[in-house]
């Protein structure tokens, strides 16, 4: 019992600690929260908000006390042991979760609550999921922190817009072209910089992203600068447009299928389009992870020096990851352009890159389902709760910090081996992971 006595909460020390935190909060809050700059005739003036300061200091003080108490209780209980259990349960439930998620996504447009707004949010979420899955190749598998991913998204979007407008090419022709162009850009940019160490690479990719955005703003002849490109052609359903009135000698979607015209048709079509694109990205990633190049990506993420000692060409291997990641961003970009009908450099700022990186990292690097969960939390959450919009980015940044502090490897960070020698052990619920044993067990 002596050991337990040592851990007894010392109220004086706790109060002192909380008091210190409160003091720091005071110093932080006084200038920025307590004194507000407001516009007045003849310049700025100051408005005081001492109540805000009091609230901030009080909540930090109490919060700190609660944290101390909670920590004390955790210590007496003896450390966090349930973490492993959660991971194990999740791992077991994964196939069911994935199947249920895909089923839900497929059925969404026919569910009773699926109005225009829900579908729009669905499209937005699927777009970010696709971007997250694409970037997961680069960040999650190959471990290359790319802070300029949005540049390839922009290349895809502008490629589609320009090709469709100037050469009158259809969406289905532009899509692979936009992907190829984005991949080409990825290759060009990746080639000189991929030998840089992790955080330098991050800054350089950020630089590339900004350079491309500045070029988009200033190359007015091509991109119409900040005005953006409007009137981007909408995709058609195998040649059938989603217009109200059919062309004189043909059909539109609703006349061909004998349906009543509804503006929702186009939305539903776009929703399925991005769903398919995202699922293709996912299938590709899952497959390539089990190929030599995918394993080499993960190995490079783990230890580049060991890779070199095994005869793996680090630059080419990284370059494939970078290029393929860029390609999927290009696909997503052309979808974005055709859905919006309008694009401008505004949509491709650094913050977009940061959001996509956050989705990948918060979900758990390399975890495909983590991307989905993180997108739902970060994108769908604030969209559904409009009141939070204003605080969205604030919460966003805060979440990034908190999740990194709490779980530096991400929320759902666990991986299954890409090949097995023994069949996986049977788990609770009797869920085997049969597919994983494909190549290994004989």
């Amino acid at each position, binding site marked *: 019992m002596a050991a337990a006595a040592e851990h007894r909460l010392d109220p004086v020390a706790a109060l002192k600690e909380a008091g210190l935190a409160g003091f720091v909060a005071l110093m932080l809050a006084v200038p920025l929260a307590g*004194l507000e700059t407001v516009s007045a005739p003849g310049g700025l003036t100051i408005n005081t908000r001492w109540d805000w300061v009091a609230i901030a200091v009080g909540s930090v003080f109490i919060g700190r006390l609660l944290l101390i108490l909670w920590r004390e209780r955790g210590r007496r209980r003896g450390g966090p042991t349930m973490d492993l259990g959660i991971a194990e349960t999740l791992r077991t439930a994964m196939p069911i979760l994935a199947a249920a998620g895909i089923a839900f996504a497929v059925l969404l447009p026919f569910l009773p609550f699926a109005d225009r707004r829900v579908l729009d949010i669905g499209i937005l979420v699927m777009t970010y999921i696709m971007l997250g899955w694409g970037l997961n190749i680069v960040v999650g598998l190959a471990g290359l922190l790319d802070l300029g991913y949005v540049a390839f998204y922009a290349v895809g979007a502008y490629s589609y817009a320009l090709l469709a407008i100037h050469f009158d090419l259809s969406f289905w022709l532009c899509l692979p072209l936009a992907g190829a162009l984005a991949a080409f850009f990825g290759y060009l940019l990746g080639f000189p910089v991929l030998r840089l160490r992790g955080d330098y690479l991050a800054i350089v990719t950020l630089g590339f992203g900004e350079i491309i955005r500045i070029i988009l703003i200033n190359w007015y002849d091509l991109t119409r600068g900040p005005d953006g490109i409007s009137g981007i052609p909408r995709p058609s359903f195998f040649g059938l447009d989603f217009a109200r009135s059919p062309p004189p000698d043909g059909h539109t979607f609703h006349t061909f299928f004998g349906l009543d015209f509804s503006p929702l048709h186009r939305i539903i079509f776009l929703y399925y389009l991005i769903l398919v694109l995202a699922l293709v990205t996912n299938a590709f990633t899952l497959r390539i992870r089990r190929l030599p190049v995918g394993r080499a990506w993960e190995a490079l993420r783990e230890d580049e020096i060991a890779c070199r000692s095994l005869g793996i060409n680090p630059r080419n291997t990284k370059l494939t990851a970078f290029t393929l990641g860029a390609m999927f961003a290009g696909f997503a970009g052309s979808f974005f352009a055709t859905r919006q009908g309008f694009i401008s450099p505004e949509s491709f700022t650094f913050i977009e890159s*940061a959001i996509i990186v956050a989705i990948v990292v918060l979900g758990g690097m390399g975890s495909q389902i983590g991307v989905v969960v993180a997108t739902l939390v970060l994108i769908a959450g604030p969209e559904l709760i409009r009141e939070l919009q204003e605080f969205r980015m604030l919460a966003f940044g805060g979440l990034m910090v908190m999740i990194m502090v709490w779980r530096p490897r991400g929320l759902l960070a666990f991986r299954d081996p890409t090949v097995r020698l023994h069949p996986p052990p049977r788990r609770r619920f009797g869920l085997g992971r049969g597919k994983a044993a494909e190549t290994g067990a004989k």
Partner: protein
Amino acid sequence: MDYFLQQLINGLTLGAIYGLIAIGYTMVYGIIGMINFAHGEIYMIGAFISLIAFLVLGILGITWLPLALLIVLLAAMVFTAFYGWTLERLAYRPLRGSPRLAALISAIGMSIFLQNYVQLLQGARVKPLQPVIPGGIVLMEGTISVRFNYIQMMIIAATIVLMAIFSLIIAKTAMGRAQRACQQDQTMSALVGINVDRTISMTFVMGAALAAVAGMMVTLYYGVIDFFIGFLAGIKAFTAAVVGGIGSLPGAMLGGLLIGLIEVFWSAYFTIEYKDVAAFSILILVLVFRPTGLMGKPEIEKV
């Protein structure tokens, strides 16, 4: 020639500001080997705090300029230093020993957080401030007269003085010795009785204080700030730190001056639209071809 001279003065002023911010990057990188991505935001906060301090002094009726400037300087340094300290304590210290990328992501998160925090508290509008130190001397009369404004002189002078003070702190004081020791080997420093946590905290505090000075200078110089100024200035100052050789204090200052001059001359002689491209391109070129910068030590890969 006179045009050139004028741009030179402008470039040096801008470069001094970048240099002050760059010191924060370089010191933090030297000691914990991470890019303090939120440092640009600290600078932005410094600018806001000095703006607010000026306004408060105006209301209080303290108008004697030297006293007002001194009070604003101290207020900005102290309050911003608290932000620097808190930043390290909340977002970086728990992640020491985690994968490098985790710390970088936490830093990016903090940067986004602080930007929106200031936007929510102070509004998204651009904040103007009437010129506090008007006037200057005319160096050369002509079709374009070359002016050396008092504010420019003050910025350059303050930068030189601060550089000298901080170099002395790092070279001569126990704190500075501890910092240099932690740069070499944290475990060993802890073993010989250096409080590593406190040393790292102090590094952030010093970096934040210098960034606050830069923020104050910018507020005075341009007379207009907003919550978004930290992002670009941060990247340019980081570029300056890398160009100078990350980890080297004089290097950061030199890099800052170079970046300031390049930016100003680029705008003056080429295109103003692409001035940021110039800074980014330099960053990329330096990192690709000479990642150790001008004054950094070469790194030998440990196998």
